[in-house]
């Protein structure tokens, strides 16, 4: 695998076994997809509900194992400790212990990523500043709005300085100002040289921030488009998506 | 075989050391009566099941002992009726009724089943066993039943020396030898959690045997430590009498 690639999917498939009385029922969520994610790019995953976006992200985060094909992340198996040390994952609608203060939660996750206490303290302060949580440091998480929770979610994915950041619906449920702030933050990650993979239902959001978009439908990749193909083109990304999934 | 079943079987293998150690630990069994030996009293089956399954036999033995004391501390209505009847009826020849020894002290038909129940739950509860035996022997005039209680307790808690001492003392109760009874009971009475009633009885027997210093020692203990106010007040009066006699 080329060192230029942050992740490589080769005919990767994932079939869930749904518990049913008698015999488990298979559900093919991802069907033998192959694509690469370049280092330093912002890659968008676009698809309808059930298209397989979250499954692909979980495969990259090492939370799921492919049932066929291979997935490599930063040169190794995503379930290896070494690759997990170098990724940051924000699940959709993250939850944090409501009685914690943000720094407590971030310190815990920094420590789980292998950071020492001495390294974690400045990293926590810095990431809180970056995501705009520093003014709310004294609050308990139970007092946080949805937008602040999402910022905290992003902060935990970034606190250990990952090379690859995987964001599942980072703008979900946010108000327009929070969406704008999130977009600025994500763009900032590219400036820092990090690779970002994000999924979204929102075509306009991906259009503004992504360098490349992979379109998914029913577990398969139906198109992969560069930003140059939608910027300035009539109908933008939306037209391309409609053409791909119809 | 599905991976889940494989994992399950692999997981079960981890329990093998625990099972092996369980075999080795089998010889450590608490010397308490088996569940099947616990006799039911006052529909106690559910309570007894809770006592065993929660690992709280001692606690439930305490509860049953409290019930026993409350039962024995409550005047029987049948007892009052008998006294009333005795007062009201007259003999033509003016003779005095003879109802047998201790007739005025009551029957307390549940006293023995309750006592046995405490022993079934915790035969090492020496205070309760001694309380039951002493009450039966000295208050209710049922020395044979008292011996039965003690013999059962000894069969279940053979290393409890107090039971042997009290049983031996009961063996002398028919004789006119209070000194020997006191000698046997004194080590039991000197224990801090001995029932006050037995202390009181031993002090009385000491007095009868002419051993006033032992009687005074026991009465002083009762006066200072007995939680029952009546016993403490009576002990003080007895102490005054003994001091008056020896002055």
């Amino acid at each position: 695998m080329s060192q230029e690639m942050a992740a490589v999917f080769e005919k990767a498939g994932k079939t869930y076994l749904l518990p049913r009385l008698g015999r488990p029922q298979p559900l093919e969520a991802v069907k033998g997809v192959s694509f690469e994610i370049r280092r330093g790019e912002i890659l968008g995953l676009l698809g309808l509900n059930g298209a397989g976006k979250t499954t692909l992200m979980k495969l990259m985060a090492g939370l799921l194992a492919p049932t066929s094909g291979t997935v490599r992340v930063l040169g190794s198996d995503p379930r290896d400790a070494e690759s997990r040390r170098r990724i940051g994952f924000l699940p959709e609608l993250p939850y944090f212990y409501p009685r914690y203060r943000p720094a407590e939660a971030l310190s815990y996750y920094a420590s789980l990523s292998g950071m020492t206490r001495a390294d974690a303290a400045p990293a926590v302060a810095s990431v809180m500043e970056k995501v705009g949580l520093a003014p709310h440091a004294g609050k308990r998480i139970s007092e946080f709005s949805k937008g602040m929770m999402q910022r905290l979610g992003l902060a935990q994915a970034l606190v250990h300085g990952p090379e690859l950041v995987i964001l599942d619906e980072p703008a979900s449920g946010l108000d327009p100002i929070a969406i704008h702030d999130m977009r600025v933050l994500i763009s900032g990650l590219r400036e820092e040289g990090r690779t970002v993979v994000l999924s979204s239902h929102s075509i306009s959001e991906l259009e503004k921030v992504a360098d490349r978009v992979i379109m998914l439908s029913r577990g398969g990749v139906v198109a992969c488009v560069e930003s140059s193909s939608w910027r300035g083109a009539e109908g933008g990304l939306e037209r391309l998506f409609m053409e791909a999934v119809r | 075989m599905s991976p889940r079943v494989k994992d399950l079987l692999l997981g079960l293998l981890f329990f093998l050391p625990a099972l092996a150690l369980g075999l080795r630990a089998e010889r450590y069994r608490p010397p308490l009566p088996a569940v099947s030996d616990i006799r039911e009293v006052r529909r106690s089956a559910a309570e007894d099941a809770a006592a065993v399954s929660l690992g709280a036999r001692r606690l439930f033995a305490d509860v049953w002992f409290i019930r026993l004391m409350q039962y024995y501390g409550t005047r029987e209505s049948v007892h009052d009726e008998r006294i009333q009847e005795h007062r009201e009826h007259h003999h033509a020849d003016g003779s005095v009724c003879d109802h047998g020894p201790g007739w005025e002290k009551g029957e307390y038909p549940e006293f023995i089943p309750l006592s046995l129940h405490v022993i079934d739950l915790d035969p090492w509860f020496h205070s309760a066993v001694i309380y039951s035996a002493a009450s039966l022997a000295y208050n209710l005039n049922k020395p044979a039943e008292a011996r039965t209680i003690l013999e059962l307790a000894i069969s279940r808690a053979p290393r409890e020396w107090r039971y042997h001492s009290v049983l031996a003392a009961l063996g002398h109760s028919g004789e006119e030898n209070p000194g020997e009874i006191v000698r046997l009971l004194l080590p039991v009475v000197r224990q801090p959690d001995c029932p006050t009633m037995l202390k009181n009885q031993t002090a009385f027997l000491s007095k009868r045997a002419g051993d006033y210093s032992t009687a005074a020692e026991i009465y002083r203990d009762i006066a200072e430590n007995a939680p029952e106010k009546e016993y403490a007040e009576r002990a003080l009066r007895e102490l005054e009498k003994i001091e008056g006699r020896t002055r």
Partner: protein
Amino acid sequence: MKALFSPALRVASHSLRLHLRDRFFGLFLLFSLLLIYSSLLVGVMAVYQERRALVDFGLALMELMGLAFCVYASATAVSSEVETKTIYLVFSRPVPRHSYLLGKMLAVFGAAALLLAATAVMHSSLLLLRGHSPDGLYFAALGYSWLKLTLISSLVFAVSMFATSSLSAMVIGFILWMLGHFAPETVFMAARAGGEGSALEFLARLIPNLQLFNFKDALDVPGAAAPPALALAYAAAWWAGSYGFAWALLRRKEF
């Protein structure tokens, strides 16, 4: 070893803090203290057996409250993180599942020790206030209770890995607790009914013998409980068995 214990200790210290801040922990503690205080009444009713009644009630209440907390905490330790998806934030990091599981179990063991210690301080104070002093047997009984609680916690952890819900894991935990106090008799009856070495006897042996730890029920009985070394080894064997079982089921589990 460092690779196992370092993340495990991080998970343990975080989870312990969560347990201590959990309102259920506070409720169990408060309820225990109230019950222990109200046991003064029982002490009065027991007349000259006040010390015994207070000690027995206190030890039993501490253990039962500890049981309620441990069963609840063990049954929900992993499932609540799955439900809230916080487990994604853990397993997307370099935290081995065996370390995570060890950390979660250690946190419940630690919380059980703290719950027992807090209630024991209150109970001992009450005893001292009434002119009685807790002796070595009292503290030994507490130690055995802790072993018993940790053993049942580890089993509930194992059960929670395949139980359909936290509630069913809790119910199974309480049933195991009750059967555990009948264990020697169950084995005896199973051997009689099915014959020695039968499948029935084997099944009966799958129930841990909690009587070995029931020191509080035999404070006046010399040699009633298993010697401390054997009790510790027996508890450790069940911890290891439950841990291994839970790991075998968790290692391939997908979230």
